[in-house]
Protein backbone atom coordinates (compact mmCIF):
# COMPACT_ATOMS: atom_id res chain seq x y z
CA UNK A 1 0.00 0.00 0.00
CA UNK A 2 1.00 3.60 -0.55
CA UNK A 3 3.01 5.78 1.83
CA UNK A 4 1.53 7.69 4.76
CA UNK A 5 1.64 11.05 3.04
CA UNK A 6 -0.45 9.92 0.11
CA UNK A 7 -3.01 8.27 2.42
CA UNK A 8 -3.33 11.60 4.20
CA UNK A 9 -4.16 13.15 0.84
CA UNK A 10 -6.90 10.59 0.33
CA UNK A 11 -8.23 10.73 3.87
CA UNK A 12 -9.50 14.24 3.26
CA UNK A 13 -12.02 12.68 0.90
CA UNK A 14 -13.28 9.95 3.23
CA UNK A 15 -16.83 11.32 3.29
CA UNK A 16 -17.08 11.53 -0.49
CA UNK A 17 -15.67 8.03 -0.88
CA UNK A 18 -18.28 6.63 1.49
CA UNK A 19 -21.06 8.59 -0.22
CA UNK A 20 -19.91 7.19 -3.55
CA UNK A 21 -20.19 3.63 -2.23
CA UNK A 22 -23.63 4.25 -0.75
CA UNK A 23 -25.05 6.07 -3.78
CA UNK A 24 -24.60 2.73 -5.55
CA UNK A 25 -26.66 0.83 -3.00
CA UNK A 26 -27.16 0.30 0.75
CA UNK A 27 -24.32 -1.38 2.56
CA UNK A 28 -22.90 -2.16 6.04
CA UNK A 29 -19.58 -1.47 7.74
CA UNK A 30 -17.42 -4.41 6.76
CA UNK A 31 -18.82 -4.56 3.23
CA UNK A 32 -18.13 -0.84 2.71
CA UNK A 33 -14.60 -1.42 4.02
CA UNK A 34 -14.06 -4.21 1.48
CA UNK A 35 -15.68 -2.24 -1.34
CA UNK A 36 -13.30 0.68 -0.79
CA UNK A 37 -10.26 -1.62 -0.93
CA UNK A 38 -11.61 -3.17 -4.13
CA UNK A 39 -12.43 0.24 -5.68
CA UNK A 40 -8.86 1.38 -5.05
CA UNK A 41 -7.51 -1.67 -6.84
CA UNK A 42 -6.02 -2.90 -3.56
CA UNK A 43 -3.92 0.24 -3.23
CA UNK A 44 -5.71 1.95 -0.38
CA UNK A 45 -7.26 0.77 2.87
CA UNK A 46 -9.59 3.02 4.79
CA UNK A 47 -9.27 1.82 8.40
CA UNK A 48 -12.46 0.73 10.11
CA UNK A 49 -11.81 3.18 12.92
CA UNK A 50 -11.92 6.05 10.42
CA UNK A 51 -14.93 4.51 8.74
CA UNK A 52 -17.09 4.27 11.88
CA UNK A 53 -16.19 7.79 12.91
CA UNK A 54 -17.20 8.99 9.46
CA UNK A 55 -20.52 7.08 9.63
CA UNK A 56 -21.40 8.80 12.87
CA UNK A 57 -20.52 12.21 11.48
CA UNK A 58 -22.34 11.68 8.18
CA UNK A 59 -25.42 10.41 9.98
CA UNK A 60 -25.45 13.37 12.34
CA UNK A 61 -25.23 15.71 9.35
CA UNK A 62 -28.13 13.92 7.69
CA UNK A 63 -26.22 12.69 4.64
CA UNK A 64 -26.74 9.04 5.45
CA UNK A 65 -29.27 7.08 7.51
CA UNK A 66 -28.94 3.69 9.17
CA UNK A 67 -31.20 0.73 9.79
CA UNK A 68 -30.74 -2.78 11.18
CA UNK A 69 -30.83 -5.75 8.86
CA UNK A 70 -33.05 -8.69 9.68
CA UNK A 71 -30.42 -11.44 9.56
CA UNK A 72 -31.31 -14.10 12.06
CA UNK A 73 -28.02 -15.99 11.91
CA UNK A 74 -25.39 -14.67 14.30
CA UNK A 75 -26.16 -11.03 14.86
CA UNK A 76 -27.65 -8.24 12.79
CA UNK A 77 -25.82 -5.87 10.49
CA UNK A 78 -26.25 -2.14 10.64
CA UNK A 79 -26.91 -0.92 7.13
CA UNK A 80 -26.43 2.57 5.81
CA UNK A 81 -28.23 4.31 2.99
CA UNK A 82 -27.64 7.68 1.38
CA UNK A 83 -30.28 10.39 1.89
CA UNK A 84 -31.41 12.99 -0.64
CA UNK A 85 -29.23 15.65 0.96
CA UNK A 86 -26.39 13.14 0.96
CA UNK A 87 -26.87 12.65 -2.75
CA UNK A 88 -26.70 16.41 -3.34
CA UNK A 89 -23.61 16.58 -1.17
CA UNK A 90 -22.00 13.80 -3.18
CA UNK A 91 -22.67 15.55 -6.51
CA UNK A 92 -21.31 18.81 -5.14
CA UNK A 93 -18.18 17.12 -3.78
CA UNK A 94 -17.65 15.41 -7.12
CA UNK A 95 -17.84 18.75 -8.94
CA UNK A 96 -15.46 20.33 -6.44
CA UNK A 97 -13.11 17.42 -6.92
CA UNK A 98 -13.05 17.80 -10.71
CA UNK A 99 -12.29 21.47 -10.32
CA UNK A 100 -9.54 20.93 -7.75
CA UNK A 101 -8.04 18.05 -9.68
CA UNK A 102 -7.60 20.23 -12.79
CA UNK A 103 -6.22 23.20 -10.93
CA UNK A 104 -3.85 21.10 -8.82
CA UNK A 105 -2.57 19.34 -11.88
CA UNK A 106 -1.74 22.65 -13.50
CA UNK A 107 -0.17 23.97 -10.33
CA UNK A 108 1.92 20.94 -9.57
CA UNK A 109 2.93 19.76 -13.01
CA UNK A 110 2.47 22.82 -15.23
CA UNK A 111 5.50 24.44 -16.88
CA UNK A 112 5.81 28.23 -16.96
CA UNK A 113 5.50 29.48 -20.51
CA UNK A 114 5.23 33.21 -20.01
CA UNK A 115 8.68 34.62 -20.83
CA UNK A 116 7.95 38.25 -19.90
CA UNK A 117 8.50 37.50 -16.23
CA UNK A 118 11.82 35.84 -16.65
CA UNK A 119 14.52 37.33 -14.48
CA UNK A 120 16.92 39.69 -16.27
CA UNK A 121 14.62 40.50 -19.20
Amino acid at each position, binding site marked *: MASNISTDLIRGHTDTIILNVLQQGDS*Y*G*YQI*YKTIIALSGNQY*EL*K*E*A*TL*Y*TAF*RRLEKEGYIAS*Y*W*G*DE*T*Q*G*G*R*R*KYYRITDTGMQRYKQNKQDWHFAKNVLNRLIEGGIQNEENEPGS
Partner: protein
Amino acid sequence: MKRMNQDLNQKIRSYVDNLFAGIGDSQQLYELKEELSINLKEKVIDYKKAGMNEEEAFKEAVSSMGDLSGLVEDMRQIGQDQTRKEVYSSMTARVSTVGLITGILIGLFGLLTMAMLYFMKLPLEAVTGPAIFIVLGGALIAYSLLTRETNKKYAMTKVRAMLYGLSVGLILFSLFTAFTSGFATGEIFIGISSFMVFFLAGFGLLLGLLFTGTDRKKGR
Protein backbone atom coordinates in the same frame (compact mmCIF):
# COMPACT_ATOMS: atom_id res chain seq x y z
CA MET B 1 -18.07 -25.77 14.17
CA LYS B 2 -20.98 -24.47 16.20
CA ARG B 3 -18.87 -24.58 19.34
CA MET B 4 -15.99 -22.75 17.65
CA ASN B 5 -18.40 -20.01 16.60
CA GLN B 6 -19.51 -19.65 20.21
CA ASP B 7 -15.90 -19.21 21.28
CA LEU B 8 -15.34 -16.60 18.61
CA ASN B 9 -18.48 -14.73 19.60
CA GLN B 10 -17.31 -14.77 23.20
CA LYS B 11 -13.86 -13.53 22.24
CA ILE B 12 -15.22 -10.68 20.14
CA ARG B 13 -17.75 -9.76 22.78
CA SER B 14 -15.13 -9.47 25.49
CA TYR B 15 -12.76 -7.57 23.20
CA VAL B 16 -15.45 -5.02 22.36
CA ASP B 17 -16.63 -4.81 25.97
CA ASN B 18 -13.06 -4.23 27.05
CA LEU B 19 -12.58 -1.52 24.46
CA PHE B 20 -15.43 0.50 25.95
CA ALA B 21 -14.89 -0.52 29.56
CA GLY B 22 -15.92 2.01 32.16
CA ILE B 23 -17.97 4.09 29.76
CA GLY B 24 -21.48 5.16 30.73
CA ASP B 25 -24.22 3.11 29.08
CA SER B 26 -26.21 4.57 26.24
CA GLN B 27 -28.35 3.27 23.41
CA GLN B 28 -25.70 4.51 20.97
CA LEU B 29 -22.91 2.62 22.72
CA TYR B 30 -25.00 -0.53 22.71
CA GLU B 31 -25.65 -0.18 18.98
CA LEU B 32 -22.01 0.62 18.19
CA LYS B 33 -20.90 -2.48 20.09
CA GLU B 34 -23.36 -4.59 18.12
CA GLU B 35 -22.16 -3.06 14.86
CA LEU B 36 -18.47 -3.52 15.67
CA SER B 37 -19.00 -7.10 16.83
CA ILE B 38 -20.77 -8.35 13.72
CA ASN B 39 -18.34 -6.62 11.36
CA LEU B 40 -15.35 -7.92 13.29
CA LYS B 41 -16.78 -11.39 13.19
CA GLU B 42 -17.23 -11.31 9.43
CA LYS B 43 -13.66 -10.09 9.06
CA VAL B 44 -12.30 -12.92 11.19
CA ILE B 45 -14.30 -15.42 9.17
CA ASP B 46 -12.86 -13.96 5.94
CA TYR B 47 -9.31 -14.18 7.28
CA LYS B 48 -9.92 -17.76 8.30
CA LYS B 49 -11.13 -18.54 4.81
CA ALA B 50 -7.87 -17.06 3.56
CA GLY B 51 -6.03 -19.71 5.55
CA MET B 52 -5.28 -18.23 8.97
CA ASN B 53 -6.15 -20.10 12.13
CA GLU B 54 -8.67 -18.52 14.46
CA GLU B 55 -6.11 -16.98 16.80
CA GLU B 56 -4.17 -15.30 13.98
CA ALA B 57 -7.34 -14.23 12.22
CA PHE B 58 -8.68 -12.61 15.37
CA LYS B 59 -5.43 -10.79 16.12
CA GLU B 60 -5.10 -9.56 12.56
CA ALA B 61 -8.73 -8.42 12.39
CA VAL B 62 -8.40 -6.47 15.63
CA SER B 63 -5.05 -4.84 14.86
CA SER B 64 -6.10 -3.80 11.36
CA MET B 65 -9.06 -1.84 12.74
CA GLY B 66 -6.97 1.27 13.27
CA ASP B 67 -7.02 3.75 16.12
CA LEU B 68 -10.40 3.54 17.84
CA SER B 69 -9.67 6.07 20.58
CA GLY B 70 -11.69 8.82 18.86
CA LEU B 71 -14.73 6.60 18.80
CA VAL B 72 -14.24 5.58 22.42
CA GLU B 73 -13.97 9.22 23.45
CA ASP B 74 -17.14 10.00 21.50
CA MET B 75 -18.99 7.29 23.41
CA ARG B 76 -17.65 8.49 26.75
CA GLN B 77 -19.11 11.91 25.99
CA ILE B 78 -22.50 10.46 25.13
CA GLY B 79 -22.42 8.24 28.22
CA GLN B 80 -21.87 11.28 30.41
CA ASP B 81 -24.69 13.21 28.78
CA GLN B 82 -26.91 10.18 29.07
CA THR B 83 -26.62 9.89 32.84
CA ARG B 84 -27.95 13.41 33.15
CA LYS B 85 -30.90 12.58 31.00
CA GLU B 86 -33.98 10.72 32.12
CA VAL B 87 -34.34 7.45 30.22
CA TYR B 88 -38.04 7.83 29.57
CA SER B 89 -37.80 11.22 27.93
CA SER B 90 -36.53 9.87 24.62
CA MET B 91 -38.67 10.03 21.50
CA THR B 92 -38.88 6.25 21.02
CA ALA B 93 -40.14 5.86 24.58
CA ARG B 94 -42.96 8.26 23.82
CA VAL B 95 -43.83 6.44 20.59
CA SER B 96 -43.81 3.19 22.50
CA THR B 97 -46.09 4.65 25.17
CA VAL B 98 -48.59 5.77 22.56
CA GLY B 99 -48.44 2.30 20.97
CA LEU B 100 -48.96 0.64 24.32
CA ILE B 101 -51.99 2.75 25.23
CA THR B 102 -53.52 2.35 21.75
CA GLY B 103 -52.94 -1.41 21.88
CA ILE B 104 -54.60 -1.74 25.28
CA LEU B 105 -57.56 0.42 24.23
CA ILE B 106 -58.08 -1.54 21.00
CA GLY B 107 -57.93 -4.79 22.97
CA LEU B 108 -60.42 -3.53 25.56
CA PHE B 109 -62.71 -2.31 22.82
CA GLY B 110 -62.74 -5.83 21.35
CA LEU B 111 -63.35 -7.38 24.74
CA LEU B 112 -66.20 -5.06 25.69
CA THR B 113 -67.88 -5.38 22.29
CA MET B 114 -67.73 -9.14 22.68
CA ALA B 115 -69.31 -8.92 26.12
CA MET B 116 -72.02 -6.67 24.72
CA LEU B 117 -72.81 -9.01 21.83
CA TYR B 118 -72.83 -11.99 24.22
CA PHE B 119 -75.40 -10.45 26.49
CA MET B 120 -77.45 -9.42 23.47
CA LYS B 121 -77.86 -13.20 23.06
CA LEU B 122 -76.36 -13.23 19.60
CA PRO B 123 -75.02 -16.53 18.23
CA LEU B 124 -71.52 -17.36 19.43
CA GLU B 125 -69.85 -17.03 16.04
CA ALA B 126 -71.02 -13.40 15.93
CA VAL B 127 -69.78 -12.80 19.48
CA THR B 128 -66.22 -13.86 18.56
CA GLY B 129 -66.07 -11.41 15.63
CA PRO B 130 -64.77 -8.39 17.59
CA ALA B 131 -61.95 -10.55 18.96
CA ILE B 132 -60.04 -9.43 15.87
CA PHE B 133 -59.48 -6.17 17.75
CA ILE B 134 -57.84 -8.12 20.57
CA VAL B 135 -55.54 -9.68 17.94
CA LEU B 136 -54.52 -6.25 16.65
CA GLY B 137 -54.19 -4.83 20.15
CA GLY B 138 -52.05 -7.74 21.30
CA ALA B 139 -49.62 -7.40 18.38
CA LEU B 140 -49.35 -3.66 18.98
CA ILE B 141 -48.74 -4.15 22.71
CA ALA B 142 -45.98 -6.71 22.04
CA TYR B 143 -44.25 -4.37 19.58
CA SER B 144 -44.51 -1.34 21.85
CA LEU B 145 -43.23 -3.17 24.91
CA LEU B 146 -40.15 -4.45 23.10
CA THR B 147 -39.16 -1.13 21.53
CA ARG B 148 -39.25 0.47 24.94
CA GLU B 149 -36.01 1.33 26.69
CA THR B 150 -36.30 0.68 30.41
CA ASN B 151 -33.99 1.07 33.36
CA LYS B 152 -32.85 -2.52 33.03
CA LYS B 153 -32.96 -3.20 29.30
CA TYR B 154 -32.21 -1.49 26.01
CA ALA B 155 -34.84 -1.16 23.33
CA MET B 156 -35.03 -3.91 20.76
CA THR B 157 -34.36 -2.99 17.13
CA LYS B 158 -37.55 -2.11 15.25
CA VAL B 159 -37.45 -4.93 12.68
CA ARG B 160 -37.06 -7.53 15.37
CA ALA B 161 -39.78 -6.05 17.54
CA MET B 162 -42.04 -6.01 14.49
CA LEU B 163 -41.40 -9.72 13.93
CA TYR B 164 -42.25 -10.40 17.58
CA GLY B 165 -45.43 -8.38 17.17
CA LEU B 166 -46.26 -10.39 14.06
CA SER B 167 -45.75 -13.70 15.84
CA VAL B 168 -47.95 -12.65 18.77
CA GLY B 169 -50.53 -11.42 16.27
CA LEU B 170 -50.46 -14.74 14.39
CA ILE B 171 -50.89 -16.78 17.57
CA LEU B 172 -53.82 -14.62 18.70
CA PHE B 173 -55.26 -14.77 15.20
CA SER B 174 -55.06 -18.56 15.27
CA LEU B 175 -57.23 -18.55 18.41
CA PHE B 176 -59.58 -16.11 16.75
CA THR B 177 -60.03 -18.29 13.64
CA ALA B 178 -60.33 -21.39 15.80
CA PHE B 179 -63.25 -20.06 17.83
CA THR B 180 -64.95 -18.28 14.94
CA SER B 181 -64.84 -21.23 12.56
CA GLY B 182 -65.53 -23.68 15.37
CA PHE B 183 -68.68 -21.89 16.51
CA ALA B 184 -69.80 -21.13 12.96
CA THR B 185 -69.71 -24.77 11.88
CA GLY B 186 -70.30 -26.35 15.26
CA GLU B 187 -67.48 -28.78 14.49
CA ILE B 188 -64.46 -28.87 16.79
CA PHE B 189 -62.17 -30.43 14.18
CA ILE B 190 -62.70 -27.48 11.85
CA GLY B 191 -61.77 -25.17 14.69
CA ILE B 192 -58.59 -27.13 15.36
CA SER B 193 -57.57 -27.35 11.72
CA SER B 194 -57.90 -23.63 11.13
CA PHE B 195 -56.20 -22.95 14.47
CA MET B 196 -53.23 -25.11 13.50
CA VAL B 197 -52.18 -23.19 10.39
CA PHE B 198 -51.75 -19.77 11.97
CA PHE B 199 -50.63 -21.05 15.35
CA LEU B 200 -47.76 -23.06 13.89
CA ALA B 201 -46.64 -20.14 11.72
CA GLY B 202 -46.74 -17.73 14.67
CA PHE B 203 -45.20 -20.14 17.14
CA GLY B 204 -42.42 -21.08 14.70
CA LEU B 205 -41.59 -17.43 14.20
CA LEU B 206 -41.59 -16.85 17.96
CA LEU B 207 -39.24 -19.79 18.58
CA GLY B 208 -36.91 -18.57 15.84
CA LEU B 209 -36.78 -15.15 17.46
CA LEU B 210 -36.26 -16.51 20.96
CA PHE B 211 -33.31 -18.63 19.89
CA THR B 212 -31.50 -15.87 18.02
CA GLY B 213 -31.88 -13.01 20.51
CA THR B 214 -29.00 -11.05 22.01
CA ASP B 215 -28.90 -10.01 25.62
CA ARG B 216 -30.38 -6.54 26.03
CA LYS B 217 -29.67 -6.29 29.76
CA LYS B 218 -27.84 -3.18 30.82
CA GLY B 219 -24.60 -3.06 32.72
CA ARG B 220 -23.11 -6.29 31.44
